[in-house]
Each structure stands twice: as structure tokens, then as C-alpha cells.
């Protein structure tokens, strides 16, 4: 069996809000109910629970188990995937692996975080010793020097980064689930003139942390067919890389783990970047999407700005990109934020994009970025190729 022997039969997503007035488990319950209603499944048929990381759940070393308890899910597979922003795609891949291994048949993948309402995160990594004492704010600072270095090596047209920001914002305007605060159109000038956070990272480069939840039901394709799910989305390729080139002291920070992860996912799926119908890259910062375009082979390294200049990234453009706004314009649901672009890709392939439905639903490419390492770009890169069934 392979990952493509599994099928996503339903997806669900809550409204993304700045600060939730509901508990993280209440949001999880909302997602569960929507999935049960959509699929007609009985709760007892769910025999697997796959969770993404969560800043709310982070203080609890029994996060997956406690969530299974709260939602009263009796399961044979129960696991949290903790690779930062790659966690939702990673949880989906692990759920598929568990199904393939025969551990379970029907997995509820839940990506929930209420970081603004309740942040229990207490990370243990290099930062307390090596970067917090330098006043490093975290991701914006890291992306500040990644961006400066990129500009030094290749040159950088900030208007092209702005073009991506504008396309995403256009998507958020059409997305009723996006955080309301972000649902006003912007221009390239707004992007370029937005205030600096960590030069040259601007406010409109960055995500705004929000609260929310999303999820999906993954089952074996065989079971999906038996249960009569005529509409489904198939994960046909997945690649993941953690600590890319970490055995080296000095690397090119414009190289990312999406190079090997993408090659693996594309090979499994039997496609290349030029076949991608819609692109849903992880967007913690605008430039991260351009770096991924280069690593995944949409264009050559250093030519991201030229590529962006030549393409239209709106839902009705030639390469629709994060059509619901992405995290930057829909709001970043903490460590579950990778779920937003994943769910949007699934929604598009179900043909349920509504006002922002893409025309070409042959496939969708979803990625993840997770973790900020010392003087590097990121810790984990994930690449997932989805196709509709049939």
C-alpha cells in the first residue's frame, strides 16, 4: 500500500478569530461535529486521532490522549505530530501511514490551537541560551537576515513580494472564514510602505497569530469506496525533511529542505512543478513562498522575482496561490496554522471554493514550514501533493 491508498472524505474549518471565546476542545468538538454531519459516520467508526502541534496543548505531555478523552473517541491510533507548521500535513501523512500499517481505518485529523486565548508553550531548545539574550524576537528577526542575504546574493524586487501579498489578501476578502481584521484589500504600495518589524521584514510580510481549528477525515480508499464516498481527495505524494544540512556549520540560507522533500513528493505523485494546478505554500512570511517556488522547481534559484512577475496568483490566475488568503491574510492559527492552507487545497479539489473556486482542479500542492533554527531558515519542510479521486 502507499499513501495514495488513503482518501480524505471530508474537511471542516472554524472561523479564524483573533482571540477565541471558546476553549480549544470546544473548537475541536465543532470540527468533529461538522465532519460527522458531512460524512454521516458514527463517532464509533473513528478509530484514529492525529493531532497537529498546538501552543494551547503544548504544556500537556498527554495532549493527544487528553483530547481523545475530551471528545470521547475510542481509538487504536492516537498521536500528536510536533514539527511546527508542518504538523498538519505531517499528521495527515502519519495518519495515512497508520492506516497503511493496519493500525486503524478511519482517522480524525485535528488541527486546533488557541494560542491567543491560552498559550501553554514552554519550548526547550537553543533559543533561551543563544538567541533570547540577544533580543531576537523570533521568526521576523530570522527572516530579516534571510531576506537581506537573499537580496545580497540575487537582488530582490520587493514589489514582487508585494504582488504575492496582494493576491493572498484578495483571497481573504472572498473567504468568510478568514479573520475579519484582515479582510480589507491591500495594494503593492501598502505592502512596500508597511512598517518595518525587522528590516527588511515588514508588517505585511508577517502572519498575525489567531485562534481556530480545522480538520479532516482520512480513511483507506477501499473503505471510502465501500462507504460510498464518491467525492474524495487523495494524497498522492508526500515528502518531509527535518534538519536539512544541519551536519554543516555554514550553508546557503536560501536553500531549504523543500528541495529534497519536494523531489520525493513529486516523484511519488508523478508530477513536476509545471503540472501544479494550484499552489498552497506555507506562508509564515511572504519571502518563504518565493524560496519554496525556487526549491520546488517553479523557477530557478535566484529567479523567484522574475517568476512572480510573469504569473497571476489570484484564484482565476494561471497559478492560484493560497486562495483563501493563506495564513498571512486569513490569520495564523498558531501551530495548527498549516491546516488553513491544507484545508483550502482540499476544499478547492472538492470544488467547494465558492466565489474563489479555481478552474483547474487536477491537483493541488500544499507545503509546510516548521521551526526556526539558529542562523538558518527553518527546521522542517513538508510537501504534499493532492488530487481528486477518480
Amino acid at each position, binding site marked *: 500500500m502507499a499513501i495514495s491508498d488513503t482518501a480524505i472524505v471530508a474537511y471542516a474549518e472554524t472561523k479564524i478569530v483573533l482571540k477565541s471565546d471558546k476553549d480549544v476542545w470546544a473548537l475541536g468538538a465543532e470540527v468533529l461535529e461538522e465532519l460527522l454531519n458531512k460524512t454521516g459516520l458514527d463517532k464509533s467508526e473513528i478509530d484514529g486521532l492525529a493531532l497537529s502541534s498546538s501552543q494551547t496543548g503544548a504544556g500537556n505531555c498527554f495532549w493527544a490522549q487528553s483530547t481523545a478523552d475530551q471528545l470521547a473517541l475510542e481509538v487504536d491510533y492516537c498521536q500528536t505530530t510536533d514539527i511546527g507548521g508542518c504538523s498538519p500535513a505531517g499528521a495527515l501523512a502519519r495518519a495515512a501511514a497508520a492506516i497503511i500499517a493496519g493500525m486503524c481505518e478511519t482517522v480524525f485529523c485535528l488541527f486546533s490551537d488557541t494560542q491567543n486565548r491560552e498559550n501553554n508553550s514552554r519550548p526547550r531548545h537553543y533559543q533561551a*541560551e543563544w538567541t533570547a539574550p540577544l533580543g531576537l524576537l523570533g521568526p521576523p528577526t530570522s527572516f530579516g537576515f534571510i531576506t537581506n542575504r537573499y537580496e545580497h546574493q540575487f537582488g530582490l524586487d520587493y514589489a514582487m513580494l508585494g504582488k504575492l501579498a496582494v493576491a493572498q489578501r484578495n483571497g481573504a476578502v472572498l473567504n468568510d472564514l478568514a479573520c475579519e481584521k484582515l479582510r480589507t484589500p491591500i495594494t503593492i504600495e501598502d505592502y512596500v510602505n508597511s*512598517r518595518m518589524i525587522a528590516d527588511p521584514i515588514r508588517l505585511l510580510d508577517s502572519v498575525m497569530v489567531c485562534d481556530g481549528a480545522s480538520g479532516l477525515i482520512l480513511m483507506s480508499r477501499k473503505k471510502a469506496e465501500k462507504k460510498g464516498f464518491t467525492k474524495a481527495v487523495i494524497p498522492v505524494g508526500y515528502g518531509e525533511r527535518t534538519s536539512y544540512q544541519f551536519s554543516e556549520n555554514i550553508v546557503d540560507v536560501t536553500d531549504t529542505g523543500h528541495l529534497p522533500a519536494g523531489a520525493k513528493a513529486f516523484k511519488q505523485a508523478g508530477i513536476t512543478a509545471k503540472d501544479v494546478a494550484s499552489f498552497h505554500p506555507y506562508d509564515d512570511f511572504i519571502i518563504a513562498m518565493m524560496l519554496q517556488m525556487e526549491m520546488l522547481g517553479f523557477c530557478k534559484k535566484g529567479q523567484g522575482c522574475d517568476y512572480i512577475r510573469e504569473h497571476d496568483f489570484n484564484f482565476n490566475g494561471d497559478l492560484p496561490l493560497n486562495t483563501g488568503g493563506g495564513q498571512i491574510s486569513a490569520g495564523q492559527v498558531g501551530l495548527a496554522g498549516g491546516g488553513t492552507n491544507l484545508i483550502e487545497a482540499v476544499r478547492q479539489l472538492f470544488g467547494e471554493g465558492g466565489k474563489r473556486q479555481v478552474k483547474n482542479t487536477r491537483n493541488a500542492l500544499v507545503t509546510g514550514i516548521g521551526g526556526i533554527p539558529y*542562523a538558518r531558515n527553518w527546521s522542517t519542510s513538508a510537501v504534499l501533493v493532492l488530487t481528486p479521486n477518480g
Partner: protein
Amino acid sequence: MTAINDTLHIERQAPAFRSYSEPYWNGTKEKKLLVQYDKAANRYQWYPRATSRFNGKASNLEWREVKGAGEIYSFTTVRRARPPFQGHEPFFLAVVTLPEGVQIMGNTVGITKEEMKIGLKVKPYWHPLPGGYHMLMWQKA
């Protein structure tokens, strides 16, 4: 010339260190820049880790003093920070490449906005911390 804050007036302490990084922090008491060195790989590594990033064998590691003759690899101007850095922005955060083949991050002292650039030569500036430790910062060479 546009001055960028040098962060010297911010109250900060030596961080809690780990069993394997203690030699570095003790070295800063004498303003010594100690870097882990892998005897088998004949290479330095930074930041201090529990094992060799080259071959996974901690027993290959020892500490060697380096001069800190650095060059700016990249930098950012931090304009938003958390306490105790809040209110002291803007300040620089730089990634510095040493000839020993490692990169060390740090704040800068006395480098103006106009002077700061990738490739700028720098050397250590040791800022005193409570307990006799020092914080490694970077100044123009």
C-alpha cells in the same frame, strides 16, 4: 551617520546553560571565545551542542579558543522586541562568519546604519554580565 542602539544599557544576565555548554560560559569570564572542536573531523562547530554535528560522537569534541576575526554574513535591524529589549530598538542582530568555519549571532556595538553591510569585518566586544560572565557582541575590526 545614523546611530543604531548598541544594547549595552539593557539589563541582562548570562542564560541558564547546559552541562555541555558550561565551558563556553566559563571562558567568557576571561573574555575567551571558546568553540567546540571535533578532533576526528578536524572542524569547529557552533552553537555548542551535546554532540558532534559531523559524526554524532560527543567524545570527539574538545574546546579551542578562537580569535573571533569575523565577517558579517547577514543582519537585520530589530524594530520590535520583547522586554528587556523593548524600548531599546532599533538594534542590530548579525550573523557573523569566522575563518574557523562557524557562524555566530550577536548584537553589535558602535556600528552605524551606514557602515553595516554584508562582508563588514568585525571582532569580539565583550560586554560584562552579572556573575563575571560576558556577552559576546561584535564591533568593527
